[in-house]
């Protein structure tokens, strides 16, 4: 599934302004321990996390992940959105919990 296909579902809302949304989401990963994500994360991953500080953008960008998804309507910090826009990382918000979010995908 591509990012813009995910966004057709109104339960997924893009929070920042990024130019390329036709990137393929190649896998979905949920983890809140940054060094574990750093070790296991892959290019193209959609990453579900409850962390909201700007370091999540550094991780996603270094690993070339496709997007960050914040579940349970969790709001990111303002600096996180700014940094994400600078680094072309889409930040997507959903009211869904992790399980419901993952159910949107099949690989």
């Amino acid at each position, binding site marked *: 599934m591509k990012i813009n296909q995910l966004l057709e579902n109104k339960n997924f809302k893009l929070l920042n302004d990024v130019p390329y949304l036709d990137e393929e989401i190649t896998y979905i990963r949920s983890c809140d321990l940054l060094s574990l994500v750093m*070790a296991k994360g892959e290019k193209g991953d959609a990453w579900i996390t409850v962390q909201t500080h700007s*370091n999540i953008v550094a991780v996603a960008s270094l690993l070339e992940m496709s997007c960050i998804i914040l579940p349970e309507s969790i709001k990111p910090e303002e600096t996180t959105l700014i940094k994400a826009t600078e680094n072309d990382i889409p930040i997507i918000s959903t009211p869904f919990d992790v399980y419901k979010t993952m159910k949107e995908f099949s690989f």
Partner: protein
Amino acid sequence: MKFEYTISNLNFSTAGEASSNIKKVLKLLGIDSKIIRRAAIATYEAEINIAIHSHGGKIILYIEEDSIKITAIDKGPGIENIELAMKEGYSTATHEIREMGFGAGMGLPNIKKCSNEFSITSEFGKYTKLEITIFI
């Protein structure tokens, strides 16, 4: 080629900038993406460790014909027991830091896994120094 980055302590909003810059440099040089990934992971973890556990320090990147060398050196407080610090899962991170998602005790083991050559030296009370070599 040599690049140097200053890392301040407890500044989480800028932590990650050195590694992201290093990644850009390596990309521009056309280095293989698998090698870049390893270098990016190693520098990120070294950078975060300086920001979280030390009084500040620097990361120096040397790009040579057949290798990338990354040196991370800080101003202390040093590591008392290096063998313990290298163990997966060992962390002295505070509760607050753990809540931010750091402190899994995976950083140093990750760095070692990404390196072809790795050395860690420290003088307790003085400094910690990592020397990482990744063959191109």
